[in-house]
C-alpha cells in the first residue's frame, strides 16, 4: 500500500498537475463546442416541452457532477483518516469549489426550467430541497476550511461535514421515488435501458463529458494553488 501512496506524494503529483491544465483546457474547449452545437442546434425539440428541454443539457450534467464531486470528497476525507495521508484531504478541498458551482448551476437552471414547465420558479419539492441542502453542506465545508486555523481540527470538522452531507446524496437520488414530487423519475439508469432517445442522450453525454473536464481543470488549478501555499509556508520555516 505504501508503494501506491508514493505516487500521491505532492512532489511527484505536482510534476503532472502543473503541466496538465493547458491540455485539459484544450480538450474542454473542443468537447464543449461539440456539446453546445448538439444541445442548441442539432438535438430535436421535445414533443411536450418543445425547446425548453434544451435546458436539460446544462441542468442534468451539473447535478450529476455536483453529486459525484461530493461523494468523492467524502470518500477522500475518509481515506485520509484510514490511510493517514493528508494529500487526500487536499484533493477533497480542491474539488469542493467546482462542486459548489455545479450545485448552484443545477439549482438556478432547474429554476429557469421550472417556470415554462411547471409554471413556477421554485417549489419546496423533495428533489429541489435536498439539492439546496447539498449546497449548504458544500458551503459549510468550504467555510470550515477558511475559518479554522488548527490543522487537525479542520480535518476533523470537514470530514464530519462530508459524512453528514453524504446521507443527503441517496435522498437526492431516490427522492423522486420515495415522495410525490414535481420531478419525473430517472430517465437514465446504469442497470437498465434508458428511456431517453439517443438523439437527446448523445448531447447529454457530450455535455456531461465537457462539465467533467471543466471540473478537472478547476481541480488541477486549485490543487496546484494549495501545493504552492504549503510550499510558501515551507519557505517561511527555512
Amino acid at each position, binding site marked *: 500500500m505504501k508503494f501506491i501512496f508514493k505516487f500521491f506524494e505532492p512532489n511527484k503529483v505536482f510534476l503532472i498537475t502543473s503541466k496538465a491544465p*493547458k491540455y485539459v483546457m484544450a480538450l474542454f474547449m473542443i468537447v464543449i463546442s461539440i456539446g453546445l452545437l448538439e444541445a442548441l442546434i442539432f438535438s430535436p425539440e421535445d414533443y411536450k416541452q418543445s425547446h425548453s428541454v434544451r435546458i436539460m443539457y446544462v441542468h442534468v450534467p451539473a447535478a450529476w457532477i455536483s453529486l459525484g464531486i461530493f461523494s468523492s470528497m467524502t470518500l477522500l476525507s475518509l481515506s485520509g483518516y484510514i490511510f493517514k495521508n493528508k494529500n487526500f484531504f487536499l484533493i477533497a478541498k480542491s474539488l469542493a469549489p467546482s462542486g459548489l458551482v455545479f450545485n448552484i448551476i443545477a439549482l438556478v437552471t432547474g429554476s429557469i426550467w421550472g417556470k415554462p414547465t411547471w409554471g413556477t420558479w421554485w417549489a419546496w419539492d423533495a428533489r429541489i430541497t435536498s439539492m439546496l441542502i447539498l449546497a449548504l453542506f458544500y458551503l459549510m465545508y468550504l467555510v470550515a476550511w477558511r475559518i479554522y486555523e488548527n490543522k487537525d481540527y479542520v480535518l476533523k470538522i470537514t470530514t464530519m461535514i462530508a459524512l453528514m452531507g453524504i446521507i443527503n446524496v441517496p435522498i437526492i437520488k431516490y427522492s423522486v421515488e420515495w415522495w410525490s414530487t414535481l420531478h419525473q423519475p430517472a430517465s437514465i439508469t446504469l442497470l437498465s435501458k434508458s428511456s431517453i432517445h439517443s438523439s437527446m442522450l448523445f448531447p447529454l453525454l457530450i455535455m456531461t463529458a465537457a462539465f467533467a473536464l471543466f471540473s478537472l481543470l478547476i481541480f488541477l488549478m486549485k490543487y496546484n494553488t494549495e501545493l504552492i501555499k504549503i510550499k510558501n509556508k515551507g519557505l517561511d520555516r527555512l
Partner: protein
Amino acid sequence: MIKELIYMNGYGLYVWSAFAFTLISFTSLYVVTKIHYIKEKSKFESKFGSLDSKKAEVARTQIINREILSSTNNI
C-alpha cells in the same frame, strides 16, 4: 434560421438565460481560481527571491520548488 434559434418557439429567453448563467459561472470560477493561483505563485517567487544563497540552495533541492519556479504560466 437564426431568428428561430434565438426565439425557440417562445422558450428562447429561458434556454439562453440558462446557458448564459452556466457560461458566466464557468468564467467566474475560472478567473477567481486563476487569480488565486497567480497570487500564490508570485508570493512564492518573491519569498524565494528574498532568501540568502544558502537557504535558496536548500529550497532548490525540492523538486516541487524547482517546478514552481520553472513553470512560468502553465494555466
